[in-house]
Structure formats: structure tokens, C-alpha cells
């Protein structure tokens, strides 16, 4: 049955969704241009854009595979090769500037095993890591994961710490991991490094770290309703009063 003329075809809707979203840029003002190849197709884009903004300039609209645009959320992993280079490089699209002759594709998601565990019920030793991630024993120390990491984490080192049950070092080294998944996409041993790191940090937080003494003191203070009066004042204050109090607040040192 023929479709009604007023109904947009799928192809029309796709074409619309792919319209450039970068606005307010006048092409005549742009001095430097580079050619990049997104999934094999060439686009001329302004040279000072990041991969993310360049893709938007070229007409892509990101619904997923983008987040904070500040290099923290780990959503916009990219794989690219530069013209004439054999090396396959990785980065975050929001943090990497385009270069002439760059071939690239986004890796917005890495399919990964994410086991469910209860850290309260697990022993604080290497066996918990091997139970949920036995494949860590397959690590050949090739260091491909560290090479791929946009956070400059020594990813291999923290997997090696996992293998010998060194939770403290594991937590320390993997602390800045943003779970972009690029390491896992490159690992020949099919290890999902960031999930190993997360379990390790959780175990270390639960069992390895000392319980903070000041927290106990503060909980006691809260139980004794030490701050209730001040909170009451704030709750009842007018907007003007709140603004005034906010401006006059005592701040901790940065």
C-alpha cells in the first residue's frame, strides 16, 4: 500500500537528522582547512576543531557517544590513523584536534562483561579478582592497553597488580580511569581492564582503606543534632537573606 504523501519517508528523516548542527560559522572567515575521513568519507573541516566538533561540522549529530565534552566522561572514544602512518591511535574525540589526512571512526560503546558481585561477601584477596575476571591471567604484558589509554594510565601495570592481588597499587594507578573502553577494545587477551579496576578500587575502599576517624566524629555530631538549628535558620530564610549568607560564607581553602 502506498504511503500517504504527508508522511516523511525514513530516508528523509535520516537526512534531516544528519544536517549540520554547527551554526554561526561563516566559512569565509576560516583560514585553515584540513581533510579528514570519517568512516572512509572525506570532509573538509576547519583545522582548529576537535574531532567531535569537526564531525558535527561535517553534519553528524551525536545522540549517544558524547557526554561532558570536557574529557571526563569517557563517552567519545575515537580510533584514528594519520596519513602515511602505520600506527593506530586512540583518543577522546572532544580532546583531540583534527589533523590533515586523519582517518577516524567513533567507538561510542565497548561491549563488556560486567559481573554482578557483592563486595561485602567477597574475600579481600586475589581470588575475588580471578573469580570475576579469570581472563586477567591471560595478560601477556604487551602494554597495548596503556598505549591506547587517553588518560595516560599505565593500564597494563594495574592489570598486573590485579594479578598479584595488590589492591592498593591497583586503586592508585587506575584512579583516573574514565571507562572509555579503548583499552578493552585493543587487548589481545580480551580483558576488560576498566571493570577489573573498578572491582579492585571497590574492594580497596571497603577493606584496604582505614576508616576515617573524622567521619565517626561528624556522625556523632549529626546524631546529637549539632547542626539542626543552623539548618532551621536556612530553611526559613528569604531568598535575599540566602544570597547575603551565601556571599558571606566562610570557604575552605582551594
Amino acid at each position, binding site marked *: 500500500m502506498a504511503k500517504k504523501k504527508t508522511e516523511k519517508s525514513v530516508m528523509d528523516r535520516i537526512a534531516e537528522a544528519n544536517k549540520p548542527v554547527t551554526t554561526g560559522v561563516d566559512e569565509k572567515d576560516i583560514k585553515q582547512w584540513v581533510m579528514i575521513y570519517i568512516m572512509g568519507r572525506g570532509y573538509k573541516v576547519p583545522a582548529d576543531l576537535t574531532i567531535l566538533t569537526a564531525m558535527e561540522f561535517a553534519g553528524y549529530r551525536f545522540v549517544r557517544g558524547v557526554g561532558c565534552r570536557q574529557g571526563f566522561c569517557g563517552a567519545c572514544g575515537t580510533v584514528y590513523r594519520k596519513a602515511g602512518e602505520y600506527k593506530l591511535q586512540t583518543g577522546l574525540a572532544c580532546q583531540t584536534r583534527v589533523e590533515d589526512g586523519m582517518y577516524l571512526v567513533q567507538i561510542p560503546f565497548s561491549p563488556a562483561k560486567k559481573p554482578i558481585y557483592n563486595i561485602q561477601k567477597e574475600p579481600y*584477596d*586475589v581470588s575475588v579478582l580471578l573469580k570475576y575476571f579469570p581472563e586477567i*591471567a591471560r*595478560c*601477556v*604484558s*604487551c*602494554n597495548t592497553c*596503556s*598505549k591506547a589509554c587517553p588518560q595516560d594510565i*599505565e593500564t*597494563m*601495570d594495574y592489570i*598486573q597488580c590485579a*594479578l*598479584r*592481588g*595488590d589492591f592498593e597499587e591497583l586503586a592508585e594507578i587506575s584512579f583516573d580511569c574514565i571507562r572509555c573502553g579503548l583499552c578493552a577494545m585493543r587487548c*589481545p587477551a580480551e580483558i576488560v581492564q576498566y571493570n577489573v579496576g573498578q572491582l579492585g578500587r571497590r574492594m580497596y575502599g571497603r577493606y584496604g582503606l582505614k576508616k576515617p576517624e573524622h567521619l565517626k566524629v561528624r556522625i556523632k555530631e549529626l546524631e546529637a543534632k549539632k547542626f539542626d538549628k543552623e539548618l532551621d535558620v536556612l530553611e526559613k530564610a528569604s531568598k535575599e537573606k540566602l544570597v547575603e549568607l551565601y556571599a558571606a560564607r566562610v570557604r575552605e581553602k582551594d
Partner: protein
Amino acid sequence: MQKIAYYPGCTMKTTAKNFEDSAIAVFKKLGIELVEIPRWNCCGTVYSLTSDDLMHHLAPIRNLIRVKEMGCDKVVTFCSMCYNTLKQSNLRFQQNEEERQKINDFMYREELNYEGDVEIVQALEFLRDSVGFKKIAEKVKNPLNGLKVAPYYGCLLLRPKEASIDNPEDPSIVEDLIKSLGAEPVDFPYKNECCMSYLTVNHKDIVAERTFNIIKSAGKFGADMILTSCPLCEYNLDARQREALEKFPDHLSMPVLYFTQLMAMALGLDDKDIRFDLNYIKPDDKLIKSNI
């Protein structure tokens, strides 16, 4: 105090913690500090015999780069398996120019190009050649007189002959160590046999049978205990005695010790350094005390 670069390996940090703790304490008693190499990784576990597989040599060679980064060219290791893997990979690396270049190229992120110039020393060799059994004998506080100890070499300390720490056909290094501690070495036909290694994962029964036979033989020749330097041999000979007993009701259990535990006993170290708590079959109190 003399210092030497030390490669622990994963097992010394986990299931063989009794090996590491006794090793560190014994060496300290002998005036040697074991300095753990920074950022070490797994040794590679098994030396890869495949001729076109260089990937599995990255792990051992990377460790040797770490040794160089410390400014050292000699590293001591205890675990027979780590020793064998590091040693054989290093030999292969030294002998093959093309592979050497490929491996270094692949590890371009390392600041150092490895040249094959690190010496890998098994701790028993170190005790024999750099400390001397005579000196060890002088340091013995509790001579283990009357204690009969069967040295168990297994495969990895002696094979292949290029990687052997002693005469592969007729070794005596562990016997000499045992004598220096005042105990009596017991020769038995199974001392160079394989413990069945990783079959322990999928075929416990095969390992149990081998364990039964090894221990039966050592017992027949009068041994009170078995001595090893391999955490996998230790596991198969010690913990697998449970399965051995299930399968062979006439099995007589026997303690299996790391050589460093026996040394710690003789040197008069504390229980916390000897760490029998991690051995499956605990050495008989009477047996130990009557000999100390």
C-alpha cells in the same frame, strides 16, 4: 647490607606468601637485602616453545628492562617457574638478533632498548655461588640434626640443560644446602620427575596419583619431609595430598616445605617468618622440635 635486585613473581605474593616471607627473612639474616624490582609484571608463566610466537616473550623481557632501569644487571628469583621462563626467554633473546630487534621495536614505549645483558639467578644458585654453603653452615643456630629431607627438583630447575642450575643428570645443589643446615639429604628416584604441573586444574586425579607415588617413594627412602622451590610443585605435592588420601587410603601424609622455610628453621627465625600456617600438611611439631 648487600643488596640484590629481586623478582618475586605473582605466586610469591599470593598463594606462596610463605615462600616469600621466609625468603626475605632468610636473606636478611644472611646480610642480603632483596630489593623488589619496580613495576614488574607476570613472568609469562610458561616459556613459549612456539618458534614464531614472540608475543609471549614480551612479559619476561619487559621484566629484564625493569632490572636495567634499576641500574642492575643481575636479578635473583626464587620460584622455579619464573626462573625458568625468564632464563629461557633471555637465552633466546641473546641468541637471535632478528627477534631481539622485533621485541625491542614492539616495546617502543620503553625508554630502554634491551640488549640481553641481565643475568638471571635462581636463589639456590645465589646461595651456592654468592653466599656459599659454608657461610650458611656457620650461621646455623639450630642444626637440624637427624632430620631427613628429600630434595625435590621437579622439572624447571634442571631442564633444559642450558637453563639448569646444576648438573641436570646428577644434581647436588639442594643436597648440599640440606647438609649445610645439619640435616640429612635423602636420595629418591622421583626427585627429577614432573609433578604434573597444570593438570592440577582439570585432572586432579592424575596429579593425586603422581603425588601419592612421589611421597610414597620419598617415605620408602626414609624422608621426613620434601623440599621444593616451586610453588606449583608445592601445591601439587602438598595440597593435593587431600585427593591422594581419598584415592589411596594407605597414603601417609608428608610435609612439603620451601627450602627457605627449612633454612629459616635452622637459622633460628620466628614462626612468623617460617609461616607453616600456609602449608597444607603442617610439619609435625614433635618432628620439628626434636630436631631443633
